[in-house]
């Protein structure tokens, strides 16, 4: 089963000069699931300020790709490089610069939104004060829900609470977001799109998957289609 991988540059793409080293580089990545290859010989680079939009139908391996890049799963070939060196060899340095948001919200039902976010920040090695979290929640459009237990929130509110991590202080250049727009209403989608665009302007890098078209004004977007 041959797997074709196409990288289609959108009209926003600015061809990067060869001298700037790519922040993130994926070389010859291969992934086998259930005995069948999802993709193989997948290579791409992502420069500063670039967003890679991973597309493909269900089961094409989008989530698998993101998990491989994070290091949650082991590739069946190839490697992920960060700042010119294998990510695996600099695990803690790489993870210190990574913010991953998966399908699951990673929120504890019995804790309040505030407690969840402050503990998550401490786990990531930054310290978020009460005011920091309140500001982030306001940006995510759930400023009033800080004291509520996650158990009492709706799906969309939970997603917003999980996404509020993106507004917390601390610089993490690499964002890997799996379906960040799912379960969000139009207003939240706009807020998130603006947040991602701002991240790109600040020289960050992002990989994301989504099924819906979301305009990201001014961001350099490249598309990676998995078949």
């Amino acid at each position: 089963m041959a797997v074709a991988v196409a990288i289609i540059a959108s009209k926003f793409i600015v061809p990067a000069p060869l001298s700037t080293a790519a922040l993130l580089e994926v070389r010859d990545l291969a992934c086998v699931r259930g005995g069948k290859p999802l993709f193989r010989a997948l290579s791409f680079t992502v420069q500063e300020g670039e967003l890679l939009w991973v597309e493909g139908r269900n089961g094409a391996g989008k989530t698998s790709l993101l998990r491989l890049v994070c290091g949650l799963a082991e590739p069946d070939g190839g490697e992920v490089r960060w700042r010119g060196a294998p990510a695996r060899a600099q695990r803690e340095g790489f993870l210190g610069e990574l913010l991953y948001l998966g399908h699951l919200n990673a929120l504890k039902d019995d804790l309040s939104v505030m407690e969840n976010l402050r503990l998550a920040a401490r786990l990531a090695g930054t310290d978020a004060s009460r005011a920091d979290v309140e500001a982030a929640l306001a940006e995510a459009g759930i400023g009033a829900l800080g004291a509520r237990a996650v158990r009492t929130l709706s799906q969309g509110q939970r997603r917003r609470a999980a996404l509020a991590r993106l507004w917390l202080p601390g610089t993490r250049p690499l964002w890997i977001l799996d379906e960040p727009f799912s379960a969000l209403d139009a207003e939240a989608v706009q807020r998130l799109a603006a947040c991602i665009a701002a991240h790109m302007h600040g020289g960050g890098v992002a990989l994301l998957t989504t099924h819906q078209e979301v305009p990201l004004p001014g961001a350099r977007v490249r598309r990676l289609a998995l078949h």
Partner: protein
Amino acid sequence: MAIRIFQFSSPQTFYPLAGRLIPLFWVLAALFSAAGLYTGFFVAPTDFQQGEVYRIIFIHVPAAWMSMFIYLVMAGWAAVGLVLNTRLSSMMAQALAPTGALMTFIALWTGSLWGRPTWGTWWVWDARLTSELILLFLYLGFMALQASIDDPRRADKAGAILAMVGVVNVPIIYFSVKWWNTLHQGASVSLTRAPSMASDMLTGMLLMALAFWMYAIAAALMRVQSIILERERHAGWVKDLLEPAAVKGSP
């Protein structure tokens, strides 16, 4: 890169190799057990204390040796598979587990049969029997864990971690059980106390041990073959291998 190629090709090259080795080991197993059983039943003298009953050691002791040794080998293969990410090693570990469990079971069963006439009960909480029982639990845990994880790669890795934890634990368990019950017979065969046993007995036991070895290798290789077929069923070479046979086999 070389390691990757080795990984992908090795089950394919190993499969026919195993196929050629299996008959050889079966023949050796048959020869050694014939020689061992002959020595055990006809050559070795009757024990002056236990009479003919003691002859069960020609099965019991080799099985007990193998049960412990196979666990070590299995954990070794599993560790190699975990560290070097070689699939064939993990398959070897998986293939060895049932044979190891079988040996443990035989050792327990024959131990119990031996215990009835010598100690007067089917079961005594003697240190070696108890350790052997715990070893059986460890084998069963390993096989149950592997069987309950669907993804073979995850099953291999989880099994390897368990086997390695088990290997660290086996001496501790053995020591603790021995500590718990110091009222046990001395080991039947030890290099320092070899004179306590007639040399014919020792020969018979060693021949039987070799027979068990050959059997274990043959059985493990056969099991590895079927594991390879099962796991590589999507690979082209397995389809090529099975299809002509399927045509021939369906008149």
